[in-house]
């Protein structure tokens, strides 16, 4: 947690109970003329160039689109756990009417606070627990992973791709599998090496993980951690890399082939508008390429025209709904058929993915 923020929170704590009363009064007194107070809870610093940064861009988008109809605020670097509950509670009690909690670990704290503030609307990213006033949403980032996998498969010369991962949870495993599937569709000889850095954010460690992979012959890298360190390593060592969360080409213009990017703005705008109209309902949203919530960054000039064409075709197919990434035949690492040709993995299976597909090297650690 950002120490400064923690310090501020500590200072604010004694005011909490007072603010509860004041906040409830404020909600009761809300009339249409007042701006909608929208709050965001971030797990990292807004300057991380990654996950939190992408959410903050979404917040800024809402503010730019709705002008004085909304008033947004955020608390960054809130650690997942007991601290989160306090921060969310505080935000709710300060009169926020719509609160986005943007990390998986906020699920239980959000639910607890949601029960205490039935008039406040909560939206939790990446979780599966919902309530009458708590919806969930996430992005089909795996669709972007698949497209970047196509690029990686075409651009590799050693046929070894490197993947710096954080922790073996379904979201990360799904990304690895989607990337592998794309890569092997483009080039059946490809294998993907995964290194678990056991951290979401430590630039130095991410760099070492990247160099370990380069040492073991990987010549296209990608990551599911939060800094741009692997792009820099790739640039320094003369191999390619694919970013995640945001366009990271600034960190290595020769190395950066493309990136899977999130675009939360339209989704947040829609939710805020619904709350203003009174049409909001607690639902689970999982938008992707088709809705524009997931996308890929512009391809590097080094990518040949026919690869660009291929990516454009596949992207159009995903948009049209004719391609669903995990379309059969899907074969797992042991060589067993998971989904036969003509069928596709359902969302429930995607959300609980806990196995590697064929083409991923190494044993999946049990989380």
């Amino acid at each position: 947690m950002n120490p400064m923020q923690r310090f501020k929170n500590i200072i604010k704590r004694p005011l909490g109970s007072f603010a509860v009363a004041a906040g409830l009064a404020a909600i009761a007194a809300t009339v249409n003329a007042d701006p909608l107070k929208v709050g965001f809870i971030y797990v990292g610093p807004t300057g991380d160039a990654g996950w939190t940064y992408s959410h903050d861009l979404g917040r800024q988008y809402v503010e730019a689109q709705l002008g004085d109809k909304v008033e947004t605020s955020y608390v960054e670097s809130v650690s997942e756990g007991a601290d989160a509950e306090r921060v969310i509670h505080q935000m709710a009690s300060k009169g926020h009417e719509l609160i986005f909690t943007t990390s998986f670990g906020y699920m239980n704290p959000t639910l607890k606070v949601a029960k205490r503030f039935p008039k406040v609307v909560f939206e939790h990213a990446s979780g599966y627990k919902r309530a009458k006033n708590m919806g969930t949403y996430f992005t089909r980032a795996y669709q972007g992973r698949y497209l970047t996998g196509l690029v990686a498969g075409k651009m590799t010369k050693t046929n070894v791709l490197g993947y710096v991962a954080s922790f073996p949870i379904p979201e990360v495993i799904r990304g690895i599998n989607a990337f592998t599937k794309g890569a092997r569709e483009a080039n059946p000889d490809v294998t993907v090496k995964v290194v678990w850095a056991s951290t979401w954010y430590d630039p130095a460690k991410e760099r070492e993980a990247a160099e370990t992979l380069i040492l073991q012959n990987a010549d296209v890298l990608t990551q599911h951690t939060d800094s741009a360190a692997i792009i820099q390593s790739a640039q320094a060592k003369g191999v390619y890399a694919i970013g995640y969360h945001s366009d990271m080409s600034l960190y290595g213009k020769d190395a950066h082939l493309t990136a899977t990017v999130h675009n939360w703005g339209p989704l947040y705008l829609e939710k805020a508008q619904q709350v203003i109209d009174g049409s909001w309902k607690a639902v689970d949203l999982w938008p992707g390429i088709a809705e524009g919530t997931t996308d890929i960054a512009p391809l590097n000039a080094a990518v040949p025209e026919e690869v660009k064409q291929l990516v454009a075709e596949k992207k159009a197919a995903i948009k049209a709904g004719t391609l669903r990434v995990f379309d059969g035949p899907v074969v797992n690492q042991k060589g067993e058929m998971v989904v036969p040709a003509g069928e596709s993995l359902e969302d429930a299976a995607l959300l609980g993915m806990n196995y590697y597909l064929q083409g991923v090297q190494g044993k999946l650690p049990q989380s």
Partner: protein
Amino acid sequence: MDADLIINILYATLRTGTPLLLIALGELVCEKSGVLNLGQEGMVLMGAVTGFMAAVVSGSLFTGVLVAVLCGIGMALLFGFLAITLVSNQVATGLALTIFGGGLSAFLGSSYVGIGIEGFTPWELPLLSEVPVLGKIFFSHDPLVYVSWILFIAVYWCFRSSRAGLIIRAVGENPEAANALGMRVFLVRYAAVAFGGAMAGLAGAYLSLAYTPLWTEGMSAGRGWIALALVVFASWRPERVLLGAYLFGAASILHLVLQGLGFEASPNLLAMLPYVATILVLMLIANDAIKARLNTPFALGKPFRPQL
């Protein structure tokens, strides 16, 4: 494992251990003078951000390093003023420095996020780098790694056989006696604290200008705290700090390399390796509890008020 891989592991070990070595050496000198500064993390972050900003603005990496070192000294002197002159509680003041540095660095650096610069590139020392095996491991690093070795030798020599080292130790063991002998306790403690700040600033510059040439909030990722623990486990001896820092580096690298080799162990367990290995080895070395306690500066953390 082939020879090439082992060479690369050892090479990466030295690089990973360098920031820890720098911070820990600085803290060691500071603690030897009897001052416990828990503000390492804040000073490292401030060094990293100011060094990066200066390098971007001036276009010169060495200016960046210089600014980072000066910034570290400035932060340390601020701590010194509170903890030495105003005799505030050292633990609380140090923690405040960490919080202050973390917040201020994020504030200062917010418009520098997302900028990439050309960081330090390795300097292959003439002749030495051509020695087979050893040349690649030891003599093809970026300049700050060599600087860390020179500083290590300086600190080692200082406490081993210099009068300055004796004075610092005297001030850290018994400031009243040192004062009575005419040593300038405040001056010595200020100098030691400033040295600690300079080293932390240098470590910050190493992170943001050499190791991963970029700035993001909180990029030191707890290295200040690890270095702080390292000083204690190394029982305040420079050569053990060196060993501990590189051991930690080696285990961190192995955590990643073993996975790539298909070693079947939980990465979560492997991620513990650096901590466990470092603590175990340093504990085994310092197995004589009485001796270890004797190494602790007696007046560590205790404020000094001259008797009038």
